[in-house]
């Protein structure tokens, strides 16, 4: 617990630093950041007649936690797919750490330090949870065919990797499942594994696609602490999420997408009151969770509507 408390104080520093960076920044879509790790220009992806992604310019600040939000079907996942080489964009360029990344195959993207998770989880079913985790580690000596034949060459590294994996599993409350096949995990557990596995890569930029959908809120809360720790270690986090509490809690900056384009950017506190964002995304559910009274009001609305309907039907 000790480490965590010191981490917590450090987290506050970092957060403060991040806030300082973002403090005076403009709120326009595509606003330049002082130290961008990822710069995206004019990325377009069409499916038939549908333009799923059409992002003019976006930058992600190094060492920050950036949230990407937007209504369902806004193109967030598709956008991730383009950036990480899982789909080919119709046009556009983007750089990671200053290096152009167009046409770089998915595995190379990951090797360069940009790792993503999948919204619809991809558990490696007939591998154990621990093996899933170990797979994430990079630069494994034993992944070379010839060295694999000499156990001595990779044993030591494997032990280190295992240790790291065990730590993460404990964090993600999956340690009890370590020996089970990943295919037997529950929906939420898969999400957890997906994220934990991505962290095994130790990337510079981790891109999480709805990491907490379906994860128990108590656990979510403890994991957010972990994500903040990651920021302390200098990792950049870009995540998609529909849970506004979470967005508000950990993100330094929020990018809002709708219908493929970035419609707004800003710090979480202000972005949620942005008219466009409320319109496109938040709806009545803005800023704070529903209070009791609001809930009542909604219920009454609903009841009224229902009664009207019933009346209609009886009138027929």
């Amino acid at each position: 617990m000790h480490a965590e408390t010191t981490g917590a104080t450090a987290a506050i520093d970092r957060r403060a630093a991040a806030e300082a960076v973002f403090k005076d920044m403009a709120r326009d879509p595509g606003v330049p950041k002082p130290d961008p790790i990822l710069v995206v220009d004019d990325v377009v992806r069409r499916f038939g007649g549908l333009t799923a992604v059409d992002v003019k310019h976006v930058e992600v600040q190094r060492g920050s936690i950036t949230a990407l939000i937007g209504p369902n079907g806004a193109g967030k996942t598709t956008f991730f797919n383009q950036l990480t080489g899982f789909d080919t964009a119709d046009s556009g360029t983007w750089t990671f750490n200053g290096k152009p990344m167009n046409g770089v195959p998915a595995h190379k993207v990951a090797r360069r330090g940009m790792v993503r998770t999948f919204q619809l989880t991809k558990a490696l079913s007939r591998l154990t949870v621990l093996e899933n985790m170990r797979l994430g580690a990079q630069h494994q000596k034993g992944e070379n065919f010839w060295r694999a034949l000499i156990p001595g060459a990779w044993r030591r590294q494997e032990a280190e990797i295992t240790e790291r994996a065990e730590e993460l599993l404990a964090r993600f409350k999956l340690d009890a499942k370590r020996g089970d096949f990943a295919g037997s995990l529950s929906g939420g557990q898969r999400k957890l594994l997906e994220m934990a596995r991505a962290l095994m890569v130790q990337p510079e930029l981790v891109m999480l696609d709805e990491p907490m959908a379906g994860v128990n809120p108590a656990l979510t809360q403890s994991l957010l602490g972990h994500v903040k720790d990651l920021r302390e270690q200098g990792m950049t986090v870009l995540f998609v999420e529909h849970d506004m509490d979470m967005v508000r809690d950990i993100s330094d900056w929020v990018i809002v997408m709708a219908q493929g384009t970035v419609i707004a950017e800003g710090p979480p506190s202000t972005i949620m009151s942005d008219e466009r964002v409320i319109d496109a995304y938040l709806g009545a559910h803005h800023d704070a969770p529903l209070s009791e009274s609001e809930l009542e009001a909604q219920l009454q609305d609903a009841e009224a509507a229902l009664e009207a309907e019933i009346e209609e039907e009886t009138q027929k």
Partner: protein
Amino acid sequence: MDWITIFSTTIKSAVGVETVLYALAAIGINIHFGYTGLLNFGQAAFMAVAGYGLAVTVTVMGLPFWVGIVIGLVAAAILALLMGIPTLHLRADYLAIVTIAVAEIIRLVFRSVAFKDIFGGSDGQRGFSGGFQALNPFPEGDYGFNLGPIPIFFPHWQLWVMVVGWLLIALCCFIVFLLMKSPWGRVLKAIREDEDAVRSLGKNVFSYKMQSLVLGGVIGCLGGFVYGLAYGSVQPDVFGTETTFFLYTMVILGGAARVFGPVIGAMLFWVLLVLLNGTLSEAVAAGVITFIDTSQAGALRYVFVGLGLILLLVFRPQGIFGDKREIAIDAR
């Protein structure tokens, strides 16, 4: 009924050259399919290029035996590359049909009249195993022992093939064991489950699939050599799709993704086949079974082999060594 013969042939078949050569090829399939999830239905082609590589080198080009082995190995590796470069991007079931197609094309070319001068047409090539037998350390004669009343003897030349074959099997199993326990093997197994996930973790999926294809192909090609050396000849139709089907059967019977699965599977398969064969033909000859005649006994054997396969897999769908839990996840 001649039970002694039935048992002696059955026991011999458990370790005989057929078991050896099928086990080797099945170990290759196990790497492809069991560990990597590549539905390679063209394993027979690897055996074929090896067998023919050896045969053509020795008989047509007149080069020594070991050159033939080298050429066979190289041919198998090249085939893996040629087959892999365009096809490894395909989804598993599409890969299956493409590999069948490649294997059939190779077989048809080997058996065609157009290339008869090189490959010998439908009768294939023979007369290339002298170099191998010249190395035989066993003096001429029969070797073996009597298991009670049951004689188990092999002639020296067959024994030589078997000894080399079993050593190869042991070596391959050991390699597979080492590899599949290693992180390299872990990547293969992960690819079997979900390529995209593996890609997202920074592994070059294509390269690993290729390595798997080459490794399995080269091990499979050892089976081709053993065939050629044990029979002293190669024929194109041996390397048809049927052979590959049987290889799959063996892998599944023994248990996919298990080191010894293919070996046990091959033994089981041949024991089943030979036991049924012996029993049925003796039963027909002895008049125990009367509803069929001699020429139908062979067919009846396959009927029972089919039945045996069905029953084995119905009652043990994971195979002999397989893990029930894996099957539970696999089921729809």
